[in-house]
Each structure stands twice: as C-alpha cells, then as structure tokens.
C-alpha cells in the first residue's frame, strides 16, 4: 500500500512522520540528533531509503547525517565544507569587505538520478556537491566566483543559499537562490552561473531593479513544466515563464505578499500555494489567522484555505523550507510552523489537520511518497 514519510527539521532535532496513503493515522519518531538544529532533511528521489540531514549548532559546527534505511538509523558522513581556493570577500553589513566564512548547511538537494550525489547550499552562500553519498564535498565555485560575488551582502538571517532546484528535464540546468543576492541559474551543471533577477523590484535597494541584491525567499516549480518558476520574495510573489529570464508579479489579491514558503501542486502545474505573513517586521499571519492561499491560475487570483487551521490568536511563522507536497492521487500538502505544528492536507489544501502540535520550531518539511 502506498504511504508517505514526512521529514521534519526543527530547532532541536529531526522527526520522521509516517502514514499510509489515507494520511489519517501518523506514527511520529524522533527526535533524532536531539538538541541540535536540523535545518533540512531530504530523501533521494531514486532511493527513498537514502535520506540526508543537515545537523548543526553554533557550538559544535556542522554535521551531515545519512540514513540508508528510510530514517530508522543514521550515520554521520563528511562535514568538511572548505571553500575552493582563496575564498576572498563579500560585502559585510557596513559595506566593508568580509571574508567568506562557512556557518552551516541550509539545504540539501539529492540528485534526481543518483542516490550518492547531493548538492548542499550553505551559509556564507556557496554551493557544494558530493558524489560519494556525503562522505566528501567540493565547492562549485563558479557561483561564488561570479563577477557580482564580492558585492553580495547578507540579510538579517545571514547570507544563505537556501534554494536548489535541478531541472527535471535538463540535469545540466540548476536554479539556486541566495538571501540576499537573488536567484541564479547554471546551464552547465553548476560550472558557470548568471543572475536571473530581471523584473524583481526591491524597495530596500538603492537601485530597486539591481542585477543582484534581492532577497529571494524561495523558488518552486512543477516537474512537468520546469521553465515556469514561482518565487516568494521578501515582498512580492513572482512568476517567470522563461526559466528566470524575466519575472512578473502575481501577488494579486493576497492579504500580504510577504512570506517565505511557496510550493506547487503535484499534478496541477498552475496550482500554487503560499502562506502570507504580515510583514518583514511582523513574522506572523495577518489578523492572527493561519491561512494557506492557493491559486489555481498560476498566481494573481488567490483563495484562502483555512479549514482546520487556527483562525484566532495564531502568531507563528512558516519558514521557507517548511512546505512540501506529496504525489498521491489527491495531492497532499504539508507545512510546519515555528510554533511546532506540522499540518497536513490530504485534499490539495481544502482542509487541514495537525499531524503533531508541539515539536520544536519547525525549520523544514519534506515529503516522500512511498510505493
């Protein structure tokens, strides 16, 4: 029987939530790596038993854990993320040059074809690749070495590479997003890169249409149509129909176009989900009502999805990596909150139920659909 496995990273460990295809009764296991921050946990699309997890603390640094049995047991693999060559500098908050310093792995993106190959997006922003199951890591330094690299500047949350998408139709094409440098694309498997920020408009920049410097929060696409990208920016929900060559705003009737998470329905390429957040200074839902918004038209027209979600006194946030979908016939949608709840919808968002309510603050949610 089909089933799903939800991989949850939190401020104090990782959790694995399992259910059969009805998605009604859940088994919760964890915490794994209790007390450690787990920014991201993600499974291989080609070997669901292979799962990678990013484990870190400010005290003891970064570890990468790997499971080869679907999250039942874990073993540490390589944790040496050494920038290629002489790292050089990026721009610090005060505008002075600042050396690149590795802080943590924000996002792990297993290959679509090889369980031993995985990409890692790190802070300070850089992209690393392992081809031996996480045992060793090499930087794809063409990204950080881009002409604009020395001008990149961190946002308040640090300068993190948080989004990695490999095109399902062209493995040479990779999209990444960096806060707060913007979005970038490679068409040669990560060797060379160029910014893809035309059409983004950020009022916090001296040049509001600058080539880089935009605080992109998250990008998502549908596998059947990988030239169509959806972006939740610091402010604004954006869409590109040409693989990032240009962007247009599709915020439409959202109550706020600030937010972090964005994802696409598994079977409907024009159905998009966001969770509006009040503002950059108030990281909680408008009016204290937790609502997912769904557009069935690729943006601009949005409907609130509130059934089963708290509609008063709710002041949690939903972070950028904390939303995911399954690929069962009736698409499941999942998200986690900084209040420790993980909500699931087994009907494309029409109604929601909490899987768990009291985890540590949720940093990431990923879903594996199991045969």
């Amino acid at each position, binding site marked *: 029987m089909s089933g799903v496995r939800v991989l949850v990273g939190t401020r104090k460990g990782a959790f694995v939530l399992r259910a059969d295809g009805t998605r009604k009764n859940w088994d919760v296991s964890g915490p794994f790596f209790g007390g450690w921050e787990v920014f991201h946990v993600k499974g291989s699309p080609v070997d669901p038993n292979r799962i990678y997890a990013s484990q870190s603390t400010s*005290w*003891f*640094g*970064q570890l990468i854990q790997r499971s080869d049995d679907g999250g039942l047991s874990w073993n*540490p693999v390589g944790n*040496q*993320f050494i920038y290629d060559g002489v790292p050089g500098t990026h721009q610090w908050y005060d505008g002075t040059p600042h050396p690149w310093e*590795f802080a943590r792995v924000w996002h792990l993106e297993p290959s679509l074809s090889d369980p031993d190959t995985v990409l890692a997006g790190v802070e300070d922003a850089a992209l690393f690749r392992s081809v031996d199951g996480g045992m060793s890591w090499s930087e794809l330094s063409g990204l950080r070495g881009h002409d604009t690299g020395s001008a990149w500047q961190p946002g308040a949350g640090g300068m993190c590479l948080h989004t990695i998408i490999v095109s399902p139709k062209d493995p040479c094409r990779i999209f990444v997003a960096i806060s707060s440098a913007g979005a970038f694309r490679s068409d040669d498997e990560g060797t060379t890169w160029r910014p893809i920020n035309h059409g983004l408009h950020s009022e916090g920049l001296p040049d509001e249409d600058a080539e880089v410097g935009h605080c992109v929060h998250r990008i998502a696409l549908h596998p059947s149509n990988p030239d169509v990208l959806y972006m939740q920016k610091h402010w604004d929900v954006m869409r590109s129909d040409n693989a990032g060559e240009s962007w247009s705003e599709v915020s439409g009737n959202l109550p706020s176009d600030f937010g972090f998470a964005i994802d696409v329905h598994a079977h409907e390429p024009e159905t998009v989900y966001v969770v509006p957040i009040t503002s950059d200074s108030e990281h909680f839902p408008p009016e204290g009502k937790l609502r997912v918004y769904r557009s069935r038209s690729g943006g601009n027209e949005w409907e609130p999805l509130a059934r089963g979600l708290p509609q008063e006194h709710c002041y949690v946030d939903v972070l950028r990596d904390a939303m995911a979908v399954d690929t069962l016939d009736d698409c499941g949608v999942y998200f986690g909150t900084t209040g420790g709840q993980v909500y699931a919808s087994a009907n494309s968002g029409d109604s929601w139920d909490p899987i768990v309510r009291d985890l540590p603050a949720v940093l990431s949610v990923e879903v594996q659909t199991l045969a």
Partner: protein
Amino acid sequence: MIRVVLPAHLKMLAKVSGEVELEVAGTPSPASVIDALEARFPVLLGTIRDPSTRQRRKFVRFFACEKDLSLEPIDVALPEDVTRGREPFFVIGAMAGG
C-alpha cells in the same frame, strides 16, 4: 592516560556515556588531546576545532584543574594532574541563557 569529559552533544555523537580515556604521546597539550580524541572518534572532527583554521570554536572552552585553559596557546603543556590522570580535561560548551 588522559581523562576527557565531553559535553552532552559530543557524547551523543561519539556514542559514549562517561569519561573518555586516551593515551597521548609526548607532552600532552589541548591540541594533542583533541588530535587523539578525533583519531578515536572521527565523528568529532570539526566539532571542537574549526576545520578550516584548526582553532578552538568560539563557543567551546577547555577547563582543567579548576582553570580555564581556553585562552592559553592550544599547544601549551597540560597540568601534571591531568597528564597523570588525577584530574580530567574538560571540553565545555559555553553556557547560553534563555
């Protein structure tokens, strides 16, 4: 024989519950103790010293014989009470409030 006390997070990684006992050649120092510790528990590589600089992580401290050795040169000789196993060498995670 050097007795090493690890903080809880690193005990979890190394899968140990009590003190760790290490044989350290030459004149034991914090650096050589950490070298021996990492050799026995490779999972601890990079957790006490930054893997790039090999310097003590900023939120890690070294204590022994009721003294904070953190700001001493990392290759300074450890007190005799530590090298003779009468006192442990502590790796400490700096305290955080909240």
